[in-house]
């Protein structure tokens, strides 16, 4: 956690997924109808993200390859 840039690139995705999860958990609790659908979609994002990188670790594209201070593919190192 040295430079702010570093911090940002490490935590952007986790923070985004955390906020989406939080939104999903609360939207289903506080709302009905369309809020339930939004909650399902919001919760699908962290699940989908986790599964995508777990099952297809070498696939290119999608988000997350935003590291500015190193090679985009760690196994190239």
């Amino acid at each position, binding site marked *: *956690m*040295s430079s702010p840039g*570093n*911090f940002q*690139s*490490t*935590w*952007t*995705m*986790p923070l985004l*997924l*955390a906020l989406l*999860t*939080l939104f999903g*958990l609360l939207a*289903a*609790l*506080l*709302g*009905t109808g369309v809020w*339930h659908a939004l*909650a*399902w979609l919001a*919760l*699908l994002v*962290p*699940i989908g*993200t*986790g599964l*995508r*990188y*777990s099952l297809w*670790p*070498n696939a290119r594209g999608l988000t*997350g*390859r*935003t*590291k500015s*201070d*190193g090679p*985009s*593919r*760690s*196994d190239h190192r």
Partner: protein
Amino acid sequence: MKMQAMRGWAAVHKWSSLVCTAFLLIICLTGLPLIFSDEIRAWQEPHIYDPMPAGTTATSLDVLAQAAHTLYPGEVVTSIYMDDDEPQAYVWLAPTFEALERDPPSQHYLRFDSRTGKLLERSQRLSEEPMGFMTWMRRLHTDWFAGLAGELFLGFMALLFVVAVVSGTVLYGPFMKKQAFGSVRTGRSARLRWLDLHNLLGIVTLVWASVVGFTGLVNELSTPLFALWQRTDVQELLTPYHGQPQATRESLAGPQAALDAAQAGAPGVHFGSVIFPGSPFGSPHHYVLWGKGDSPLTSRMFRPALIDARNADVTALPEMPWYLRALQISRPLHFGDYGGMPLKWLWAVLDLITVVVLGSGLYLWIARRKTQALRTAQTKDTTEVRP
């Protein structure tokens, strides 16, 4: 992060995880069917009802209580529970109120069609009922057949799990410093691959795992929290009744009068259960009714009404203290039963991902590298130079 602080966090992560992982794995696996307990119950024992015109009014609770007394003249009715989803009412009986307090499994129920008053089912005493699959799952999930001691023990495991999640998140930062989000290094050792998967799946489930872990802890505290409320707020409401003899069955106002009084006193609340005077879970001088509101949130927040046992006056419609509100809001957030079937499936997937996080954590520990050495090595970016 300073090396020393990191070693500390690594130690916290290691030990909190090590102690709770085995229990958490069982909790995750037993929790899986519990997510779908309503559906499984409906499938195991489908309830079939006579067709009746929609909007048929419910039978008086007095009729149901009387029917129960006729069938079991030597016993006491302890409570009536009216279902929201199905036209059914459960009338619970016990040999005596003392027996119920001493030996809760001595109770049993009669299930009625709440519209016609027709008897649908006669249970055995709970002590004689064979333990079904779902009961096994629930007990293994919540108390390990050890009652309050088991609840507190598993509550402590939930606390350790939350500590493990928090410390794991702290370690995620330095660990991912040189890595793009989601990178899973597959080319080298299996251990490194599982380490990346552990980090990835741990961080994507962070909020869910924290919420379900923490609300699990709160749920395990329900027994002491309700006892606290009984001993403080409820005792205060009962002070004016001190010294009064307990109402006899003949002098009781009857459950229907109590329900009507509560409903009139709290129009926004839908009352679904009546605890009879004398029950250890109620008051010696009141019918205690439990109801819930009609908004998405308040439908999860149960509210009591104390109705005078003799004249059916509303004694109190107490507000729940903050700790019981916290408990009530913890239930849906733990069970995942508040957003339709899709939410239950999402809960199940997240539960399974948590199993992978727990299992990979255990594997990483067994795989011989101490977490501590691992984390510190990572900051120097010299991990896995050896196979």
